[in-house]
């Protein structure tokens, strides 16, 4: 069986990191960062937590390259959906045509 067995201490560490991240994000929520930074901070912490879950709990770090490609593709396609949709919404006010 060529399966990689992740040691327990890795799981425990990641678990603690996730708890700390949750604490951080709650604390950061009460602090008013300038402008858009609130969202950016919150999303950065969330993305970091998610990355740790994906890499370690879901074993992607120890998986074959195909799994990395699959995960990356999913994120890429979500990005396409967001980017092209917002290419519409965020440029609507740039030029009013006919009205």
């Amino acid at each position: 069986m060529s399966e990689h067995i992740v040691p327990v201490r890795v799981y425990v560490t990641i678990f603690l990191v996730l708890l700390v991240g949750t604490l951080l994000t709650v604390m950061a929520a009460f602090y008013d960062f300038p402008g858009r930074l609130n969202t950016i901070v919150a999303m950065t912490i969330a993305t970091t937590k998610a990355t740790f879950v994906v890499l370690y709990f879901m074993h992607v770090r120890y998986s074959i390259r195909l799994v990395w490609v699959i995960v990356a593709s999913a994120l890429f396609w979500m990005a396409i959906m967001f980017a092209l949709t917002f290419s519409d919404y965020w440029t609507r006010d740039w030029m009013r045509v006919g009205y």
Partner: protein
Amino acid sequence: MPPGSKTVKSIRFVILNSPCLLFVIFVPLVANISMRPIEYYEPPVPSKVNYINAQYGLKSWLLTRDHKRIALLYLGSITFFFFIGGLYALMIRLELLTPQGDFLQSATYNKVFTQHGIIMIFFFLIPSIPATLGNFLVPMMIGAKDLAFPRINLLSWYIYLLGGVVTIYALLAGGVDTGWTFYTPFSTTFSNSYVVATGLGIFINGFSSILTGLNFIVTIHTMRAPGMTWFRLPLFIWAHYATSLIMILGTPVIAITILLLAFERVSRVGIFDPALGGDPILFQHLFWFYSHPAVYIMILPSMGVISELIANFSRKNIFGYSFVAFSSLAIAVFGFLVWGHHLFVTSQSVYAGMIFSFLSFAVAIPSAIKVFNWTATLYKSSISYDTPMLYALGFIGLFTVGGMTGLFLASLAVDVHLSDTYFVVAHFHYIMVGGALMGYLGGLHYWWPKITGRMYPEGWGRFSALVIFVGFNLTFLPQFVAGYLGMPRRYHAYPPEFQVFNVLSTAGASILGFGMLIPAIYFVWSMRYGKRAEANPWHLPGLEWRTQSPPPTENFEVTPIVTWEAYEFAPAEETEVIGKFKPELEQI
């Protein structure tokens, strides 16, 4: 020229009787004129054990895990839905014979074209080739015993049936009149039809699509036979792999869109209703994010079939194999970037429109590459005009017309004129019927001997292919003109100046319908009375031809070890046969 003269009389005679004369000329011309002898072998004893006679009984079919039996189950249900969708088409064309709305009321007509679209798209075109030919052939072409998840394969068929039952219930209960596009806020707030029920049927059906795609991707990645490298795969497999990618990435988005639509309809919150603070364009973005790639789900498998047909019936390696393979993937990827071209005439931003227009032109390039490669394959090759090849040649021409007219629609300014006219209707029917359906029929004919162990009657096959080709063009070519001249789509009454186009179109539709009935009849006939086919009736190098027809349940008696490239044509005696099975052993 005096009216009573013999010349005039003979001209009149020819014109008035031309349909009959054409028939008289066509039938002898195509019936039983084989350009290349097809050898049949009639075993003097009943056929060997194969997947059809391995087990008997309804339960052995309804609870099967064999991908080949599941493919046949799908074949039956898909044909059923095709006829229902065809009936709706018949009603549309009957109504449009006359400019007045006299056959159907406008509300009923709305339901008819909506349901024609829903049935044809979701219950016929999207599953057609992947679920029938794909299910049957993907494991065989890669040298596997079955798909990766056989029970999930069966589950996908049951889910398909469940979705079909729910949708048919909605149709019988009263139907839906929003157009297959379900645009809001009409569908959420104002329509009095069975939107939620139909949406639920489509939602359920989506899972069938997802499971099929999932199965194909995992199978192609993990279950290829030894020696079957990626670039030895038939292009049919590449096409289905690309299709599966689209199914996986796109279908969930329409699933959530339908759920939100149902949620809004039930709760009357303003998700997509501008009066309540929502945005109807959000619905269109979400809807078309799937529905545009969906059209690539419909055409890519067909292109895969065409690659097989062109290479095999011209007995020449496909020109530019890797270009065709990569263009399948390119279509799958680019297809996700162009959905905004359905929103050109909405309040979508002009800048986004420009981006989508540019990308829509770009997505035509891989398709064009394929057409060029197929044409180059035909050059200096040994073409046999068997029925499958007729369909393939028809595809190339008709798909090109469809694709080019798509470019008209991709141009922002021209689309403003052509949007919501019959030009659009003609464009997508050229692709879906002239493209996807031709590929489906061609593939069915090509692999029929492998699937059933019987040959269809070749003369009737060629005849019906020609009838379908003529009928199809007569139906949809006038619609381009009508649309360009301004006839709107989805109207049951129209100004009288468009009548001549509609009459031609309906006449063509009758011919098309007649043409499609013929294969339905002779395929069924052939299953009982058709000539028995040997393992490799077309003498081709593909892996699926190296096992008996019909195949045994486990596909190959021993696991093949592939040492040859795709489309490597060699004399029949040199074609390596898999396992103990040898052609001469058939003579029991």
